[in-house]
């Protein structure tokens, strides 16, 4: 499933070969092979139980695979897990902080854990707090923070040791819309800094916004992976049309049935939608024909498939 890199290409930041994880009789990951280049924001998409969390926990050295090889920045994480820790940052959907610490104490604790030099420690803490907009809560007790703030604090902790790889497991779950937007900006800024980010989510519309590539997981397998645009391009032929008429939607459906390249017609109220596989240049002719037939057309909308459609199509929406 992985592609052979061109000669002289820098080694991928993350290299996964034949990864398998079994929990008793249940197979959580099956023969997963994947290369993630440096600086990529890689989205892991899949339903609950697809194996996203298992994969991220293995990359974070919190879980041991049953079989396979995983290298992060060239380090075999199974042979030397402790050597990988300085270059990774991990954040999970279920996270907890030390409630009785102050915000700065928490960051100072982890700065010490990551052996940040004392001379740089205070500056880094201030910078991290500024990045996540928590500088005014510096001396607050963690228990007084809202969920969004706690999440940002957790994120700030992950920035302190300037890791190369961010492993984010459903990081935006539980955030309000404003929090999600802030979080999206944070991911974009990480991408701007050249960091590699692996992020799992099932909120696909958000993923399309900041991911440079995605992998779709289903029942422990990587169903498809690649650049977002590249994968979307695969479905370019499947443009969707939505026609809204003032009356007689059935006549539109009958007309569309006989039109070349039209499939999967469905009617809902006065709206008729279908898939269209012919070139876009042929659409004006369809429009003229509908009008010529005397059908009172209100609108004709051309929609490209998004990640959500892509996921539903590739995975056939099987739940693990």
């Amino acid at each position: 499933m992985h592609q052979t890199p061109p000669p002289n290409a820098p080694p991928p930041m993350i290299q996964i070969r034949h990864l398998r994880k079994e929990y008793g009789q249940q197979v959580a990951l099956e023969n997963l092979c994947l290369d993630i280049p440096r600086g990529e924001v890689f989205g892991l998409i899949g339903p609950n139980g697809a194996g996203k969390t298992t994969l991220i926990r293995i990359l974070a050295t919190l879980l041991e695979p049953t079989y396979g090889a995983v290298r992060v920045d060239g380090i075999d994480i199974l042979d030397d897990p402790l050597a990988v820790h300085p270059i990774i940052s991990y954040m999970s959907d279920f996270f907890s902080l030390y409630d009785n610490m102050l915000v700065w104490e928490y960051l100072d604790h982890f700065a010490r854990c990551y052996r940040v030099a004392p001379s740089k420690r205070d500056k880094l803490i201030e910078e991290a707090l500024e990045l996540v907009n928590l500088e005014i809560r510096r001396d607050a007790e963690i228990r007084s923070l809202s969920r969004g703030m706690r999440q940002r604090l957790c994120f700030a902790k992950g920035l302190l040791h300037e890791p190369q790889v961010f492993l984010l497991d459903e990081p935006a779950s539980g955030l309000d819309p404003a929090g999600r937007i802030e979080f999206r900006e944070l991911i974009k800024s990480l991408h701007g800094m050249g960091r590699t980010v692996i992020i799992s989510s099932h909120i696909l519309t958000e993923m399309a916004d900041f991911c440079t590539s995605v992998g779709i997981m289903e029942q422990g397998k990587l169903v498809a992976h690649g650049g977002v645009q590249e994968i979307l391009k695969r479905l370019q032929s499947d443009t969707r049309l939505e026609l809204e008429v003032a009356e007689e939607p059935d006549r539109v459906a009958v007309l569309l049935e006989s039109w070349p390249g039209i499939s999967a017609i469905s009617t809902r109220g006065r709206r008729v939608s279908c898939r269209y596989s012919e070139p876009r240049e042929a659409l004006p002719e369809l429009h003229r024909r509908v009008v010529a037939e005397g059908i009172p057309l209100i609108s004709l909308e051309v929609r490209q498939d998004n990640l959500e459609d892509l996921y539903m199509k590739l995975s056939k929406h099987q739940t693990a």
Partner: protein
Amino acid sequence: MERLAFWNNPLVVSALRMKFRRGMPVAMTCTYVLLLITVGAAMYRWRVDMAGNGFQWDQIFLATLAGVQFFLAAVLAMGATKTSMQAEVNNRTMDFQRIASVSPWRILLGKLLGEGAYAFLSTIATIPLAVWLVLNGTITPAAAIALYVCLISISLLAGSVGLQVNLDPQATKTSASAQWVGVLVTMPIWLSFSMMFIQATNPIIGFFFSSLIPIFVVRELVDGTPWDAACELFGFTVPYLLVIPVMHLFWAGAFFSAMARRLVHPQYPPYSKPFAYGVVLLLDLILAGLLFDPPPLGSSFPRQILTFFLAHLFFGFWVMVAVTPRGEILHSWIWRFRGQRSWPVDALLGPRSPTTLSLLVLCLTGIAVACGALVVPQIVWRGFPAVRDAASFAFMVGGTTCLILFSLGMLHQWMMLVVPKMNFAVLFIVVILLWVPPYLAGEYYDHNSLRGLSALAVFVDWWGLTSNTNFQGASFGRLPVMYLNLAYGLILCGSWASIRWSLQQKSREVSTKLQSMGVNVAPTE
């Protein structure tokens, strides 16, 4: 050296920072010292009455201070570390600690010293009182220093016990208050048992309890003779004040290293195989040292051998449990590690391989130490004929106990392999079932062959036999030991064959899966 620099340990820094921010350490230690002074003042007030009863008030005060401090330090250290570790697991903050650039060793040292700080602070707070007692002539400076070393070491031991938690957050969800209640309930029970066993005449039982709970020392403090609490090791009298810190650190190290290992690989058995060999060797040497007593003082040679091998069986059983890999680890061994190292090296040292050869090493260690530290000195002192008479009995005792250890170890490995959620309690129940019902049935029907199937009955028989100091090993007791050996031989063979069959099945299954994954694999045996 860096990992011992606790003052730079982030966990110690954070724990102390939070404790001092609330101002608790100063308030607590001051209150505690004031309470102790009040108790001392009360004793001084009734010093004449106490003298009338044959007690010196200052010695009683010292014994009280030491006793309270030993108990308090142990409870505080164990409760605080246990609560903190469990909270980290429940809240899943331990995951962040595990993947930070802090080694497991430093994480645990930080927890031990940072969370258990009150144990150490309360000990330090009593030093002025101890100094006053030294100046008063109640205790010598050397004894006072040794006593405080014991107080520090008991905090380290209790804290290390408290560090033991299951890293699976699903496994336990015990709250902090429940952890404290657990510690406060188990401590007095443990103390009561210890006091009961310390009274036992058997030197081994007495030693292992006295070296953990310094009740002997505290009792001698009442008489003003703390150095008199002593044991005999290889014929030398060693005061418990010196033995206790060494034994505390030994056990603390065993608990500490088990948890450090678990932080890297949560599924690993607590001990690595080389560590287990070292522990058994050390314990066997201590056993031999306790039983080593030159004639004419010593008990009979057969009794020495029997006591040694029974204790070896007990410790070997404990170490065997701590070194046996779970089914999941054995499966990962088949998937990833099998055949990477030569078979003997992997079997003897590999952290994931089955325990067959390791069990053999545990058994042979006992036999080697018995020969080197018990048999050879006997030959030197009493001459070869004295040992020759007991040779067949010694051989029978050594062989039988080692066979039991080996077969129970194999049985445990097999159970671990086939039952995913197996734990020690199941093995314990199996052992009870193997030992008690045949004994009771034999007693009920008065049938020696039935009794002979129970290891417990055979040990009781041998114990009775060797109680007679004139017994020189000329007989094997009234029970037919061959039945017992046959039964355990069958358990051994059955377990070994089942393990081998299961591993082969799994190997074939794994090979098929690997081939379907497109991985080139060497054919399995």
